[in-house]
């Protein structure tokens, strides 16, 4: 209760931090969805591309976030920009992996019928493969979003004015730190859960007739 009270009392600083958190996550997911989808399609077409893309994106995930953000400050300075750049890289693996898996799961007969009816390779991709793989791709986006929402808080260490701020400020203090810590953690958790629910709902709504993660 006292935490909610704390949040309400400090909304004039927390509000912008929530907004920044959403902006960072939003831009990051927009870019990594586009890049990840393109890479995932390329990875579905070629085993060599897949091996390289998955190796690189999984290696990126092993870099500590603080180090990755720090690296980007060299080119992008302090603030949200290096955080967004780092998070884009983090988000790629689940999106690329799931896009490839989803497209690969489309039955060859369906592709052959599509080609046989005179769809160009691009039409097959846009009208058949991606629509069929949508639930699996959404599952990847969901995983990436939940991960990115949490990691974005580390961005406060390189000057991003997001929900990592109250958490960072609370760490190591002896008094009054409990509410402050939670005032950052609770909104982060809420955003994460909300994003998860929305994307899971979309995944379910679009699963009729399509390839689902459960079927893989």
């Amino acid at each position, binding site marked *: 209760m006292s935490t909610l009270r704390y949040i309400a009392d400090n909304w004039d600083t927390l509000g912008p931090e929530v907004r920044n958190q959403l902006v960072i996550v939003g831009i990051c997911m927009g870019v990594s969805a586009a890049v990840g989808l393109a890479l995932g399609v390329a990875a579905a077409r070629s085993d060599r591309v897949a091996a390289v893309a998955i190796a690189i994106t999984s290696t990126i995930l092993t870099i500590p976030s603080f180090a990755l953000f720090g690296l980007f400050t060299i080119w992008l300075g302090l603030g949200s920009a290096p955080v967004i750049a780092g998070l884009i890289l983090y988000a790629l693996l689940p999106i690329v992996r799931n896009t490839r898996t989803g497209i690969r799961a489309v039955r060859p*007969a369906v592709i*052959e*019928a*599509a*080609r*046989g009816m*005179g769809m160009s390779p691009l039409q097959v991709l846009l009208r058949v493969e991606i629509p069929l793989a949508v639930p699996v791709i959404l599952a990847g986006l969901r995983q990436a979003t939940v991960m990115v929402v949490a990691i974005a808080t580390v961005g406060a260490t390189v000057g991003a004015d997001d929900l990592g701020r109250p958490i960072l400020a609370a760490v190591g203090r002896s008094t009054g730190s409990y509410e402050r810590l939670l005032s950052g953690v609770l909104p982060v958790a809420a955003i994460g859960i909300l994003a998860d629910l929305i994307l899971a709902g979309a995944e379910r709504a679009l699963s009729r007739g399509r390839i689902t993660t459960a079927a893989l």
Partner: protein
Amino acid sequence: MISFEHVGKRYGAGPPAVGDLSFEVSDGEICVLVGPSGCGKTTSLKMINRLVEPTSGTIRIDGRDTATVDVDVLRRGIGYVIQQIGLFPHLTVAENVATVPRLLHWDRRRARARVDELLELVELPAAEFAQRLPGELSGGQQQRVGVARALGADPPILLMDEPFGAVDPISRERLQDELRRLQGVVRKTIVFVTHDIDEAIKLGDRIVLLNVGGVLAQHAAPADLLAHPASPFVESFLGGSRMVRRLGLVQLRGLALTADGGVSPTVAVDIGATLREALDAVLRAPDGRAAVTDAGRMVGVLDTEAIRRAAQ
């Protein structure tokens, strides 16, 4: 007309899948490609819509070398049905059937009318089936949708690769009968692949029998194939009881019938029947004779000897 001119296909460095194949398919006929597994039937079929590119020779459609036509344009003018059907599982039956009309940018109303017409043709009333997903249909119904989809933009040519291979024998027979009925209405040039010689005999106007390596063993009408197999391979592929099976293909209507002047037979058979049905009538008749009737009027009399002569 589809013509194969010295067509060959070699996958990689192996032996040719199709050797040096030449034959023609006339407009409006069902040409069945039949032969043992791996003899190159599917390869030959897919070379027509260029899902497989020939490594030698030329395939022409109405005189035009298919290699010179834009491949997507070529395919939109050729219906294609495969055993695994390959319906789009996320699209409704109506959307599946409208695939090629949509690729050709037909307006919505025209495409809709066409879908209704086609579903009617394959006996899946639009009111009941148009909005279903393929997963909500039986195997036989899915295959009907596959055929309707292939007929989408009314292509003059239909390619069918073992379309009824995966359905149970009873549905299979029904689908075969339906295809015959359908062909009576739509009059397409159909190339039909099967490894089942009985299906080939039942459906084909002409049969192209291939041996391993895509070598043409014989190209003939079913009745001629049964009566005059060109080689021991053809004979063994056709199997036993050739002449009896052939009786089912010969219509009484084409025969020179004579009345023998004796007493009227007690058993009659209509002129629309086949020699097989006539033989059955003759065997049933107490005096071994059956009258052939045309609209109830007797036009001839058959006995076993007359049937034997007619069957040659």
